[in-house]
């Protein structure tokens, strides 16, 4: 099953709408460990991505490229920058070719490695990387949007639980890693929450026409 520009655009619009609800929740999660801005940052970044009109992109690569550039303009925060650089990696990897949902695991794996190189975190540090890594593993071999979405969500929820009682070893929370035990990492939480939004059932077309 092909991954389309339309699907990407619907996903971005859905995520943008969902940030209304998620913004303060993610801020609150970050406030306990960091500086309390994860939610407001993502709300702004995803709004900028939606405004970049991914639906008008000529290709999947172009769509990812638009999102990456919009994200990079909208923030210099840790998570936002890493997200944007991951999208840039997806854009580069998909240049000049059609993409199947079954390719997604490998594509995200490469993006994940780029984020590690850029940000200096390792797997196990309790960051957004562990969330992405779980997704890479879970969706390997899945060929359609529905099962990719479902397995990714399931993997993310499991990963949140798995890491909850471990200490954060990167980002602002690293300094008092002990305090992060028992708390969700805001970057991982953002991944899980947004994955649920993207995977949610229902027609998407109206998002782009209204």
């Amino acid at each position, binding site marked *: 099953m092909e991954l389309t520009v339309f699907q990407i655009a619907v996903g971005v619009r859905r995520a943008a709408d969902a940030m209304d609800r998620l913004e303060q929740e993610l801020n609150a999660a970050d*406030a306990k460990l*960091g*500086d309390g801005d994860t939610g*407001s940052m993502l709300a702004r970044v995803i709004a900028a991505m939606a405004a970049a009109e991914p639906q008008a992109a000529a290709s999947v690569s172009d769509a990812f490229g638009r999102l990456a550039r919009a994200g*990079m303009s909208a923030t*210099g925060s*840790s998570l936002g920058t890493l997200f944007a650089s991951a999208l840039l990696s997806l854009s580069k990897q998909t240049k000049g070719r059609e993409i199947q949902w079954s390719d997604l695991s490998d594509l995200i794996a490469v993006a994940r490695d780029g984020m590690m190189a850029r940000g200096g975190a390792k797997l196990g540090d309790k960051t957004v990387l562990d969330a992405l890594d779980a997704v890479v593993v879970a969706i390997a071999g899945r060929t359609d949007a529905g099962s990719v979405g479902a397995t990714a969500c399931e993997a993310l929820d499991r990963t949140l639980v798995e890491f909850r009682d471990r200490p954060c070893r990167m*980002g602002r929370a690293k300094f008092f890693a002990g*305090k992060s035990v028992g708390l969700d990492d805001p970057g991982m939480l953002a991944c899980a929450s947004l994955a649920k939004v993207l995977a949610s059932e229902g027609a998407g077309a109206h998002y782009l026409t209204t």
Partner: protein
Amino acid sequence: MKKLINDPARYVDESLDGLTLAFPSLVRDGAAGRVVRRAEGMTEGKVGIASGGGFGHLPLFTGYVGRGLIDTCAIGNVFEGPNIDSCIDAIRLADGGRGVLRLYGNYGGDRMNFDMAGEVLEDEGIRCTTVLGTDDIASGGPGEIGRRRGVAGLIYAYKTAGAAAEAGADLEEVTRIAAKAVAATRTIGVGLAPCRLPSAAKPSFELAEDEIEMGIGIHGEPGIWRDRLRPADAIADEMVDRLLADLPAQSGGEASVLVNGLGATPLEELFILYRRIRSRFDQAGLTIAHPLVGNYVTSMEMQGASVSLFHLDEELKALLRAPAECAFWRVD
């Protein structure tokens, strides 16, 4: 927590507009207007110093753009690093043909964006070096100084590296001075009450009515302990003890001290702290030169203070004393 603002989305840009209107020595530049540079432009043949970081710490960072200090500043949103374009613009605008030192606080987002900007600019032939402020002793043990956060002490690196650049030093030398200044600086903060991000519904952290937090970061990052408020002298003593327990190797018995207000703490209280801090350093045989007391690096309306020690040798002392002039600080 009330704020005199219009729209959280316009907070940074409106504030920068007011800043540059009030201080004609500063102008906004860069594609998104998120660079502040000296009005007279970059001096040809001088090593440039580009800094930057998240907004909400005035007078840091933009306020220190000026003669004998830094040249440009990339400005992010509140508590977010500057984006890559602003970093690129800030570096380009600080280029006077002899290379640019990137000098900013050790935060993940800022590093990634300044790094990526440097990679982009390599092709343009602008030589870049990097020195990161890592003065917050609450954010890592003496064995992992490179991991520490950069807080108020960054202004000492601005001042000394800025003086070296102004005097004509080359990029290696300016970079050496900045790194030496950072290595000679130690800061500890204490928080009494939080600030609130303009876009956030709640304050950045919560403290009970009688509680304080030792070691808090300038974005409200968690500190060392939370406990009951105690007398100013007891707080000053603990801060001094922690700073004296973390002396850099090169400490030579003389230092500048910065008693910095985090935003909402009145000068009256900073002086009460300084009085005690000064007498404790006197007792410890540490000579204080060039004390600074005031709001130099803030966290919007956060209540609290930080104490920085900048350990001096003759070289750093001369650079600290060199003429400098910006909107919020001047030496002559």
